[in-house]
């Protein structure tokens, strides 16, 4: 599905990620885990071409390394950005409609809207409310719904649990599990390592911009260095 080879990116002279290679296969959920400042968000921004990066980017056999950022969504890569980034003064429904901006997604946008509403009944209740006035968890659901409106093949989630109360975090990870069950391919970036490893198939450990370890979620959960360094057990 998605394949990165030797991807490096940074800001000015600072290299935030160095020679990152990773693969995501159709139908699986993959996590990139690591501490704050490891370069996880930079990696997702590079995948969506929001920042310049070197290396090779391939999606479904198609090289999109030199594609401008606004065309990446058309390849089926939808990103739920860090901090959700809803349009705060627009209603929930308008936010969702923005997700269906691409001509290919506009045609059956009402059907997709219905699917999002059945997935998140709360969003239907609040469809005329200004998105910025909702709670963090509701905003996160709206942001995921917005990404789904484009009819993506691969969903990129940037720290969906950040800044949310534990109960809400649980609900968000349930949503991720549900996405996977519905057949979406998911790439999720998380600091909440313990929780995310319960919902993904495989994971990569990113530290100071480099991939340090990778494997199935069970393997990583069992690995000594991960347990000592991040899980505190």
């Amino acid at each position, binding site marked *: 599905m998605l394949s990165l080879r030797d991807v490096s990116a940074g800001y000015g002279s600072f290299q935030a990620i160095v020679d990152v290679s990773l693969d995501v296969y159709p139908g699986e959920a993959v996590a990139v885990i690591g501490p704050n400042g490891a370069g996880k968000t930079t990696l997702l921004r590079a995948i*969506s*071409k*929001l920042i310049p990066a070197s290396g090779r980017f391939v999606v479904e056999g198609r090289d999109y390394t030199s594609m*401008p*950022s*606004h*065309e*990446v*969504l*058309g390849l089926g890569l*939808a*990103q739920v*950005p860090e901090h959700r*980034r809803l*349009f*705060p*003064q*627009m209603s929930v429904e*308008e936010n969702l*409609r*923005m*997700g*269906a*901006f*691409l001509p290919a*997604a*506009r045609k059956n946008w009402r059907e997709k809207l219905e699917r999002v509403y059945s997935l998140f009944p709360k969003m239907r209740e609040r469809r005329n409310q200004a998105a910025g006035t909702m709670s963090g968890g509701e905003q996160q659901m709206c942001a995921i719904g*917005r990404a789904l409106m*484009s009819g993506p093949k691969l969903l990129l989630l940037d720290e969906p649990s950040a800044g949310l109360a534990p109960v809400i975090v649980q609900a968000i990870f349930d949503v991720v599990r549900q996405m996977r069950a519905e057949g979406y391919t998911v790439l999720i970036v998380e600091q909440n390592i313990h929780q995310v490893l319960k919902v993904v198939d495989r994971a990569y450990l990113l530290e100071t911009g480099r991939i340090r370890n990778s494997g199935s979620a069970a393997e990583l959960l069992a690995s000594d260095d991960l347990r000592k360094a991040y899980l505190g057990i």
Partner: protein
Amino acid sequence: METIFDIYLLEALCNGLLLGGLFALLSLGLNLVFGVMDVVWICYAELIMVGMYAIWWLHTAQGVPVFLACLIGIAFVALLGATMHQFIIRPVLQAEPINQLLVTGGVLFFLQAGATVVFGIEFRNLGVQLSSLNVGEMSFSISRLLSFAVAAAAIVAISLFLRKTFIGTAIRAISQDRAIMPLMGVNPARIYLTASALGGGLAGLGAALLVLQYDVHPAIGLSFGPLIFLICVLGGLGNLIGGFLAAFVFAQFISVGGFFFQLEWGYVFAFIFFIAVMFWKPQGLLAKRA
């Protein structure tokens, strides 16, 4: 005596309302462009001036019927707005606001000087005389009523466009979060171009309404350009609803103030009010960003 006084006051209020509609339309384009690009087209009134000349020239020199001349004039100013964006604004989009202001200020003087060279400094008019409508003792000019109706229709059309279409929604979204737009599949450059053409088209429509009522000359932009800008600032630059309200407030100050004293005093009151609001709420009545 008492009743006549009231009737004339009512007439002034109604005229203020009509003038407000025109102001609202004139400020809409400038506000829209600022909301989308964060750039103030200081030369906005000069775009209107160019549109007035275009319509005047088409009608009087080329014999094009007024209505058709207006449509061509609107299309021409829309094209001018898009062209100006592409070649003059786009290179300075990332620059300091002061540089953007200077660039559009340069366009202002360029258009003014250009109009003087091409058309001279004489006052020109279409030679179209529309009569006035009498309601009881009150009298309203047909051209004012017409411009109010067209302005109101245009404002409704624009707000429907901004709410109901995907492009319109993107135009509103981009003023709330510019950096995230590519993740929606939106190419900001295209939205900027669309909004610039729309802003230019609105200036062209303003030109069509003004040229029916006023003479055109190279410096006409100076007579209402600052006013349009102040209305936008009063409402909260970039806030379309704020600009709409401010247009009617300003127009009433001018119309009713002019009724009790002289027309010039109406402007004085309007600007005193503006200055007072700026002390009280520097970001405008309805700020774009809280």
